[in-house]
């Protein structure tokens, strides 16, 4: 347990540092429009630049602030980051929640009742990029949460379908069938217990997929969530905001992976 927690902490911190370094060394980062303000003295400009250049110092100050619940200030949004995240997170959580629930319900149901036509349809959706699916849904006036369902369902169908197909060829399943056990009972009592570790791993992966897909979906569907916030922060090179968002994403994905790994170990 402690080892898992330590791993999460190290990965999250490393993601934060990597993101901060990326912003610092990205072309154009040291150019600040505020430097053009005539009221600023040479000393003020030097101070502005040194604040930006000291990445590790800034990260250390950020971590100290984090212990006091202060996530910093977003220059591009002119608002405290904690307030921004609190404002946007519910929308993204709702989107991802609906996407995951819908994607799993449809993907798993179709994987159980797999037919050639369903496989072909899901294969077609799997061949389309997330951004295109979002465009097509916007064109049809569909809700943005539906986009994540459409993006996730084929992936879950594909993986779960392969795992299920393999599980149905197991000897104990064939034996149960030969004894006349019903299909529903075979599925619940013999197939699902056998494939639960793989399904748990897929559950963790689907969280990561949903978070990744949320950015283009929110950017294209104009959803005021964390994905759009991250997109705007990247475009505006808002270092404090982007470090926070990267760490939130890293926490969510590593937590999902670790929790499912711990459950499947048991």
């Amino acid at each position, binding site marked *: 347990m402690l080892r898992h927690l330590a791993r999460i902490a190290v990965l*999250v911190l490393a*993601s934060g540092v*990597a993101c901060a370094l990326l912003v610092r060394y990205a072309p154009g980062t040291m150019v600040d429009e505020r430097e053009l303000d005539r009221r600023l003295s040479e000393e003020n400009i030097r101070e502005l630049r040194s604040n930006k250049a000291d990445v590790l110092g800034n990260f250390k100050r950020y971590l100290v602030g984090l212990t006091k619940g202060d996530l910093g200030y977003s220059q591009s949004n002119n608002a405290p980051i904690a307030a921004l995240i609190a404002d946007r997170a519910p929308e993204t959580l709702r989107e991802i929640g609906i996407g995951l629930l819908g994607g799993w319900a449809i993907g798993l149901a179709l994987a159980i009742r797999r037919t050639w036509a369903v496989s072909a349809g899901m294969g077609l959706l799997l*061949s389309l*990029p997330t*951004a*295109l699916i979002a*465009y097509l849904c916007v064109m049809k006036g569909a809700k943005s949460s539906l986009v994540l369902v459409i993006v996730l369902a084929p992936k879950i169908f594909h993986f779960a379908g392969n795992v299920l197909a393999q599980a149905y060829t197991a000897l104990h399943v064939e034996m149960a069938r030969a004894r006349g056990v019903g299909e529903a009972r075979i599925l619940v009592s013999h197939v699902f217990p056998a494939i639960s570790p793989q399904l748990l791993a897929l559950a963790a992966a689907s969280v990561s997929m949903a978070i990744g897909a949320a950015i283009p979906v929110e950017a294209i569907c104009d959803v005021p969530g964390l994905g759009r916030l991250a997109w705007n922060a990247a475009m505006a090179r808002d270092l404090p905001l982007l470090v926070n968002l*990267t760490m939130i994403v890293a926490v969510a*994905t590593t937590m999902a992976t670790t929790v499912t790994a711990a459950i499947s170990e048991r």
Partner: protein
Amino acid sequence: MIRTIAISFLIVVALMALAPVRYERQFRDSPNAAPSKQFPLGTDDLGRDRLSRLIYGTRVSLLLATAAAVLSCLGAALLGGAAGFGIADGIILATADLFLSLPWLFLLLIVRAFLPLNVSPMLSVTITFLLLGALGWAAPAKVVRAAVRKLRGSDFILQARAAGCAPSRLLWKHLIPNAMPILWAQLFITIPAYVLAETTLGMLGLGVMEPLPSWGNLLRELGGGAIHPWQFAPVLLLAAVVGSFQVIFEREDYSV
């Protein structure tokens, strides 16, 4: 049968993409023209032939994805192979975990947004190619690492070592030939993933820049204004190409 059709289709698309076309030529008298004998897929807002742009865009997208996949797989082979041999195993594994702790699409979009946006078309191609290649090594490297570790403990390797086979011979004659199917599989799994990634980047305005066409920026047209059925030609081609890759490599068994 279906795999043969898919392979044949991919070969036809690859050959078609090599056709000499002038994607940048403007027919200023015929902007937004409907399909005709002269323009089988019509023309765009600037009077450029959509079919020529689709053909050249296919070349750009497929070449870009393949080149980036080769770069990723080379990185994966080097790093995964070294880790499999126990060289800097912990560091390589930790770095791969760091890359994998963030969703790939998130990482790709954020990193691309930090690079210069207003660049020449050729530079945008290079940036997209390097970015895809550099960020996609982690997952294949883990597969290669696992395969090399398994191979190292296999009977024929142990026998070769017991017979006094030199490490370099062991590597070139026994390990690499047996690890190649895994690398090939990773390469052909990665190509369609990179095609889709380039398309997503292009649709968000972060991929290949105009006037150079790619599937990404061709599909971007669907984002605004009136949409005509013939504008969906890139969607069909993209779905058919990625679908063909899925058909070909879905059931392949590359386990060592």
